[in-house]
């Protein structure tokens, strides 16, 4: 009994000594990660944590204006829930006194957490959230990925550069928000390059349609050089098939929705050789991206997904901003604002998912990756396309 008590007291004492609040020295930079370690989508949390741990191993200390700081990461579980995300980020900011926050990942948590970060004037980067509201009117909140509408210009530029397309066709589901929005953004961007009327066929259907032969006959007759179809993986095989059967032999291109789900299982050989834009591609990557993928695969035994890659870049951005502040004062509140200003001022940060510069809204202007589906059915890096 006495032994047990002694052990407990020792443990508590040890805990206090090691606990971050007690030892909050000036030469430590603390960053918080409100990520889903449990809950519906623990894979997202695991990828984020893996990337962060790998970063920490590689960059254990940071030099800011001649002074060396040790990096320390604090992970808080947001359980993939909005309420927990608010709790987690509040704890990180108020109790753990982090300088900046990386995460949450999904928009459902990033939107409410962004509100908290902005209220506490703490810089936050959500690596993976694509919802415009995450950063909207929140000067302290940034993101690591591009927004949905951005892919329209990307596809338009790619079609123009890669295939020399002058006339384009679009086939999209008018009853679904994402395809409809993207189809319109593509049309705007393509007609901006090639003049009004350059989208010669703007064909629509409604969710659940299976037969696209009539629309495809129109598209073939329109003489388009390329077909853009921002649809989901379950519709793409049918569209591609309809194109083949109606004699459309021009390139077909899509957006990041192609990459979700089992596209190749449903589409098979028909989809090989087609293109789509997305955040990042593991197969066929080069340079720093390849180095990251190799290290990650060696450390964790799997290919990093887009969450891991975007977390890596967001972390890199945050560290870069901290270094750019030109010295930390030790007053956490003042330093947070300094970091925010430095983040907003970053130009052409060389990330593994592309070069990044933030807009005043905190969304990165970055290049998208265009993926080619190769003969093995992998999504291989083809080209980086900038807006």
């Amino acid at each position: 009994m006495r032994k047990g008590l002694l052990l407990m007291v020792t443990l508590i004492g040890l805990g206090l000594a090691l606990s971050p609040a007690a030892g909050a020295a000036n030469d430590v930079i603390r960053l918080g990660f409100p990520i889903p370690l449990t809950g519906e989508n623990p894979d997202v949390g695991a990828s984020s944590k893996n990337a962060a741990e790998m970063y920490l191993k590689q960059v254990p200390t940071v030099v800011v204006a001649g002074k060396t700081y040790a990096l320390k990461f604090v992970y808080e579980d947001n359980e993939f829930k909005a309420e927990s995300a608010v709790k987690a980020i509040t704890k990180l900011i108020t109790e753990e006194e982090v300088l900046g926050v990386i995460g949450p990942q999904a928009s459902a948590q990033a939107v409410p957490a962004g509100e908290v970060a902005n209220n506490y004037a703490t810089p936050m980067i959500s690596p993976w959230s694509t919802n415009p509201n995450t950063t909207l009117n929140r000067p302290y909140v940034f993101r690591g990925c591009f927004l949905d509408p951005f892919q329209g210009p990307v596809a338009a530029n790619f079609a123009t550069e890669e295939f020399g397309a002058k006339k384009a066709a679009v086939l999209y589901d008018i009853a679904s928000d994402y395809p409809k929005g993207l189809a319109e953004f593509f049309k705007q961007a393509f007609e901006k390059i090639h003049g009004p009327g350059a989208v010669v066929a703007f064909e629509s259907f409604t969710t659940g349609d299976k037969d696209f032969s009539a629309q495809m006959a129109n598209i073939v007759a329109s003489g388009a050089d390329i077909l853009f179809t921002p649809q989901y993986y379950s519709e793409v095989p049918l569209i591609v098939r309809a194109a083949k059967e109606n004699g459309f032999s021009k390139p077909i291109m899509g957006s990041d929705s192609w990459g979700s789900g089992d596209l190749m299982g449903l589409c098979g050989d028909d989809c090989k050789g087609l293109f789509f834009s997305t955040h990042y591609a593991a197969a066929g990557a080069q340079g720093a991206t390849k180095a990251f993928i190799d290290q990650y695969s060696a450390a964790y035994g799997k290919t990093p997904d887009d969450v891991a890659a975007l977390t890596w870049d967001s972390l890199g951005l945050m560290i870069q901003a901290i270094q750019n502040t030109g010295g930390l004062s030790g007053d956490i509140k003042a330093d947070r604002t300094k970091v925010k200003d430095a983040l907003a001022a970053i130009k052409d940060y060389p990330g593994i998912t592309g070069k990044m510069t933030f807009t005043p809204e905190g969304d990165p202007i970055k290049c998208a990756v265009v993926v080619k589906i190769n003969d093995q059915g992998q999504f291989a890096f083809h080209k980086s396309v900038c807006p």
Partner: protein
Amino acid sequence: MNLNFFMQNLINALQWGSFYALIALGYSMVYSILMLFNFAHGDIFMVGAYIGLGVSLVLLKIVGSGAAALVPGWVVLVATILISMFLTAFVGIIVERVGYRPLRDAPRASAAITGLMIGIILETSNILFLGGQRLAFPQLIESQTYNLGGVFITNKKIMIVLVSIGLMTTLHQFVTRSRWGMAMRAMAYDFVVVPLVGVPLNTIAVMTFAIGSALAAAAGILFGLAYPVLDPYMGVSFGWKAFVAAILGGRGSIMGACIAGFMLGFIEIMTVPGIQIVNRLFELNIGSNLRDLIAYSIVLAILVFRPHGLFGEPYSAKLRL
């Protein structure tokens, strides 16, 4: 609209109409015998497609695929169609036994909703057993696209249209020439009196459901070849549209259901280039997504002028040819 463009759409319409026609037959036959519509029929089409998927995967496992296959792909396809038609016929028989026979003397409305309920049961059991994700239908024969002077046609399209017409002709022969066919026609004429002279109503009803379901299974497999993504709800809107074809053809008319099925396919497909022409003439901006709205308004207009359908007669639902 030039000739090539028209021909291209016509070919597409023939394929699309084949599915409507095959499924509409099932509605029409059941109606003529039992005076009720089997609203689960669209889902039996879905079940047929999934059974076809299972059968073809098993067969491919046995005979192998690709260059190492023991038999060519079309043999597997024919076997898949025949086995699946046989198996799906039993699904139809079970539906009749469970959903319709106990309610034969019940009010019409009750018998009508059993079909809806069985349909939902079939959809949800599919999700229960297979998890609800989309499945790819194996492409048993190599797809070939032929370019006939600017009109593109595939071997599958030709096959689908020929097999459908073949099945319809076989059914026609069966109903007109065989003793069982005669019994069906007699039952369609009067299902109260004819059993009194020794024709068993239950046997005929079972046979009708079996044949209708087998045709739906054939349609399901052909559909899988043309549109190789299967989902548990694929039969819902398809079933409704085939039902429209059955009514449009004239309730109880086999020939009517076939012709109306092809006609419906034609109207649906041709509406899209039609919209384009209207857009060009009047400088409008109507989207192709209004296809169904326009197509079914046309069907409605036809029914206003021919309320009994193309081949229907007033106050008659007997099985006609």
